[in-house]
């Protein structure tokens, strides 16, 4: 929202010692977000009013014209101009050499120099409003449009533009979001009140005089929706001449970015900007007036009712939309936008003004559902003070009668009210304030702040009874904490000294899951050189289909933003596979992991609310790993190494189970293992099925793992892993043998270890497959360490056990042992 400094000064006396910047700074710290200040005329040095004397097509460019422009000197100047609307006789903003402009309203200011544009010399520039900082005042309708000064009336050619436009104002741009809970700040009067509080200046009264009812039209209001319309006021004025507004009004509107249209529309817009109370005007000749009786019916739309708004758009409404109708037809979407069928035109003679107050929520729903955002809806959806309805109507009638002295009120002053505001009083004492903010503020100062903000304070026995002003009572303020905020922000948050709280030194309860996550992240990245990826929790049906996953098993968003990712991930792997695909084209080796939550609809998690019988879906934290490297034909082993060694770091020995039950079809049928710790399944290690790998367009084989950290956490025991060192030397023997491919390493190790207690470590150091071994055969080679805790082993002892071991391998695994 734009706020004019000059406009504010109508309501408070601001001495020159208070700069525009001071006002912005204080507003920022105590009230709203001032995004910027635009000083009018700031960029207008060397820019004058010019008059286009001639326009000729540029010989070398289709979209350019060569113009001569008069600027008060003897000879006009030649300018090459690309403006789509340039024409002879037009008054324009002429920037001479040395003037500073912003090309197309963007980037830095550039000083103009004599240039040749496609071989034609140009001695300056005919400017668009945005190029000279007047974009707010003269909004562009078309990207290529130059500023047409003809709209602001006759101007002396050659006059400096700043003077011609009387540009001595400063405009504050206020972030609308920062105003969302302050309905009272949506007009200049409200902001003026706030500035007055901040600088201890008195706010002038908003003076209006009572409307004298006239005769001719009897306006009746039939409010059928008392829950949606809280006040409706209507007055008709005859003898109106529709035409341009006086210059002061046009200027005021333009300064805050509103384009003047005609006196009637301008009055309603002015009051919207002034008080924050939107208004509307109908042409009485287009309303149904029967026997001098005009009845407004305020009702819900019928299901499917069609309506065409002022801006010529047709809508089909449901019955949540509030309409204002005459006896035959709807004429206005209450609080949002008027209808085409009753708009003011140059022929309008009798104007019927509407000032009303509507339910904020319903206005917001209508405006968002149908995408109709207007200055009115924006204000009403914040909850306006119904008392402003009357002020606005009075002011509108005053202005109209001022502009059209021959006009007069020809109706009753119709006004129906149907609201109750909670104005307190709120009981408040200073101890409460001190307890909340940690600082004592002087009683007098507190009262002064509240008083200027419009609160009235009555005191009995040290307890204040604070009455809320109507403009803060619609929803903004209702409890004592709200009063604390009012006092604290005006007093200044910066004036409250900070002080650390004092607590017992009880250490915080440890979050074991987070600790586990962090430990794993460190190990997998620092020890195993993986990079951590963060993927979306959403996954696309495309990816799920590539993996032949069942879409039905996934929780689905009702309103996904990206239509391509409507499902919640059940696994981290699909998105990690996407990462692999994306990276494997640029890197020979991709090692990625992610830790994050997944969503399982078939299992239950936390309660929906304390004591509820209903539970949210389970959302375990998973650790996913994906690895692929060009040339690595068995990436499985890299990932199984990572997973098993990290589990060892956590003090856990895991077993890899080759059982393929519960194995999804997107895994390689023989390169898959369940990861178990103490018999509990915590995840899997697998290679991606080559078919799916091809579908993903990944060139090399991919290995994956996913471990459920919530399950893992329950298994961690942190038991000691230290084994007493033997004082006696170890003896190492190797054994190499050929077995059938299906023989498992874990089985071999288990059997070898069972042979004798003196067998310590059993380490696989070579695996080999080759045609010379025979079909489906492999050769395994192990280092076997023999050690005793009681004595130095004799060769004979070791030989005996080793022979036993060899025999066992031959019997159990049909091994051909190399001797």
């Amino acid at each position, binding site marked *: 929202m734009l706020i004019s400094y000059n406009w504010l000064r109508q309501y408070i006396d601001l001495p020159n010692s208070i700069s525009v910047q001071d006002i912005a700074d204080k507003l920022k710290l105590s009230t709203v977000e001032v995004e910027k200040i635009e000083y009018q005329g700031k960029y207008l040095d060397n820019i004058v009013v010019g008059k286009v004397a001639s326009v000729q097509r540029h010989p070398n460019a289709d979209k350019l014209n060569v113009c001569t422009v008069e600027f008060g000197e003897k000879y006009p100047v030649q300018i090459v101009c690309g403006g789509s609307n340039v024409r002879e006789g037009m008054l324009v903003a002429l920037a001479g050499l040395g003037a500073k402009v912003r090309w197309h309203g963007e980037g830095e200011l550039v000083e103009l120099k004599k240039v040749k544009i496609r071989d034609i010399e140009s001695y300056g520039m005919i400017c668009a409003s945005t190029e000279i900082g007047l974009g707010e005042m003269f909004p562009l309708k078309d990207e290529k449009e130059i500023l047409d000064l003809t709209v602001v009336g006759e101007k002396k050619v050659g006059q400096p533009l700043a003077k011609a436009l009387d540009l001595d104002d400063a405009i504050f741009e206020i972030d609308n979001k920062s105003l969302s809970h302050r309905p009272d700040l949506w007009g200049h009067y409200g902001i003026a009140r706030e500035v007055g509080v901040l600088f201890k200046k008195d706010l002038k009264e908003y003076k209006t005089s009572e409307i004298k009812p006239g005769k001719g039209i009897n306006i009746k209001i039939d409010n059928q929706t008392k829950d949606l319309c809280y006040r409706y006021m209507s007055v008709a004025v005859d003898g109106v001449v529709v035409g341009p507004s006086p210059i002061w009004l046009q200027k005021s509107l333009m300064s805050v970015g509103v384009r003047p249209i005609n006196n009637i529309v301008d009055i309603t817009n002015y009051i919207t900007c002034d008080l924050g109370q939107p208004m509307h005007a109908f042409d009485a000749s287009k309303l149904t007036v029967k026997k001098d009786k005009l009845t407004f019916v305020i009702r819900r739309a019928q299901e499917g009712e069609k309506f065409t708004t002022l801006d010529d758009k047709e809508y089909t409404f449901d019955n949540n939309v509030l309409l204002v109708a005459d006896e035959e037809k709807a004429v206005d979407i209450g609080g949002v936008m008027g209808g085409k069928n009753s708009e003011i035109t140059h022929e309008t003679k009798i104007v019927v003004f509407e000032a009303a107050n509507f339910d904020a929520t319903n206005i917001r729903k209508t405006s968002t559902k149908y995408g109709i955002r207007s200055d009115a809806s924006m204000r009403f959806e914040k909850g306006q003070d119904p008392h402003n309805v009357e002020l606005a109507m009075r002011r509108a009638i005053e202005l109209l009668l001022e502009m059209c002295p021959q006009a007069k009120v020809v109706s009753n002053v119709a006004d129906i009210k149907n609201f109750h505001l909670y104005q307190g009083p709120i009981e408040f004492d200073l101890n409460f304030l001190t307890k909340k903010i*940690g600082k004592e503020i002087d009683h007098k100062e507190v009262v002064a702040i509240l008083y200027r903000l419009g609160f009235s304070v009555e005191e009995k026995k040290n307890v204040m009874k604070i009455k809320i002003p109507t403009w803060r009572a619609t929803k903004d303020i209702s409890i004592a904490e709200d009063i604390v905020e009012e006092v604290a922000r005006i007093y200044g*948050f910066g004036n409250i000294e*900070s002080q650390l709280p004092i607590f017992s030194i009880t250490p*915080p309860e440890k979050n074991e899951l987070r600790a586990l996550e962090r430990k794993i992240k460190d190990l997998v990245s*620092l020890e195993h050189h993986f990079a951590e990826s963060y993927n979306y929790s959403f996954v696309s049906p495309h990816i799920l289909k590539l993996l032949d996953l069942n879409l039905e098993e996934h929780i689905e968003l009702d309103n996904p933003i990206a239509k391509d990712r409507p499902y919640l991930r059940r696994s981290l792997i699909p998105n990690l596979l996407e990462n692999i695909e994306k990276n494997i084209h640029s890197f020979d080796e991709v090692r990625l992991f992610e830790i994050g939550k997944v969503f399982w609809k078939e299992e239950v998690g936390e309660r929906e609310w304390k004591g509820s019988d209903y539970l949210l879906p389970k959302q375990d934290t998973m650790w996913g790993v994906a690895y692929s490297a060009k040339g690595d034909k068995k990436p499985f082993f890299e990932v199984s190494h990572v997973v098993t060694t990290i589990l060892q770091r956590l003090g856990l020995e895991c077993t890899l189970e080759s059982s393929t039950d519960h194995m999804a079809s997107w895994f390689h049928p023989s390169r898959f293992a369940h990861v178990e710790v103490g018999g509990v399944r915590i995840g899997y290690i697998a290679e991606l099925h080559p078919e799916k790998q091809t579908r993903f367009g990944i060139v090399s084989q991919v290995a994956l793992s996913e471990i459920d950290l919530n399950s893992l956490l329950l298994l961690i025991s942190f038991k000691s892993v230290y084994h007493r060192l033997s004082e006696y030397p170890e003896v190492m023997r190797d054994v190499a043998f050929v077995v059938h491919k299906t023989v498992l390493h874990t089985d071999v190790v288990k059997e070898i270890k069972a042979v004798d207690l003196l067998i310590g470590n059993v380490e696989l150091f070579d695996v080999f497959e080759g045609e010379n071994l025979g079909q489906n055969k492999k050769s395994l080679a192990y280092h076997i360490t023999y050690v005793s805790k009681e004595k130095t082993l004799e060769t004979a002892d070791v030989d005996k056990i080793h022979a036993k071991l060899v025999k066992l391998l031959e019997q159990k695994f049909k091994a051909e042992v190399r001797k």
Partner: protein
Amino acid sequence: MKQQLEKLEQEFKKSISEVNDILKLDELYQRFFSRKSGEMSEIMKNLKELSGEARKEFGKLANQVKSELEEIYTKRKGELQQHEWGNILEKECIDITQPKLSVEPKGHLHPITLVQNDLEDLFTSMGFMVLDGPELESDYYNFEAVNITATHPARDMQDTFYIKGHNQGDVSNDQSPWVMRTHTSPNQARALEKYGAPLRMIVPGRCFRNEATDARHEHTLYQVEGMVIDKDINFSHLKAVLEVVAKHLYGQETLVRFRPKYYPFVEPGVNGEVTCSLCKGSGCRVCKQSGWLEIFGAGMTHPNVIKECGLDPKEYQGFAFGFGLDRLVMLKYGIDEIRVMKSGDLKFLNQF
């Protein structure tokens, strides 16, 4: 024999003066003193031919000579070694700027993890618990419990992801609709319910907003929520705690300022700005020339939240705050494109 010994002594002394490198010196030593075939050993073999006193005397003499010669050898060896070490400047010269060839790749933690860990450690050191909660949250915890009423704009479909089959119209009255949590604030309520007061906790976590993504906006974002509740926790405490965080992040000289801002779950509500860490407050592109960076929202916990969670707001009060983690990360590393954080692109990830 005595003559043999004298000859050997002279021979050794002569040879050793001619030797110039350690290898040859050791060869020489072996030639004279090798236990099996050394010249000295040969002489000593003859010892058994002597008898009594003579044998004893000669033995003594031989040992004397041996230790004298060995001393010469050791001294010479020392000299040669000194000389050789003096040469390594040239002999063993390497290009110290050359990297080790064929190294293991490095691992990388995501920048959000790095900043999150840092904040977790800071808050833990101040006695805060680190909590988390469901990302798919009930409408109750996400909105109602934290004083966001049914008509609040935040509950519009434009801002919140709802779950199919669990929308308002789909569920019975005693069920709560499901949403993707729009902030970490539902955990204010969950934590108060579970732990009561006094409470000090933070909740780092992933949140979701139904808004179109561009260079500065993401539908998936990270927050760190914090809350302190006890009997006398007031606004000056809130200020101090957040000043600690700001100084931790941006240095001791960092200033913090608080400005009014509306959040339904606090009253008063503020947002917090710190002096721009890049320009130190003088104004630059990053802070849009203002000298200040907005990095958190905060306020005194609304009595409705405390009441809803089963505590008496007349007895307990406190504050809550929230940081946008993505923003902290982007500021810290100068990242100007938020979407790159969830791209899984190694060219990005490998930088951290």
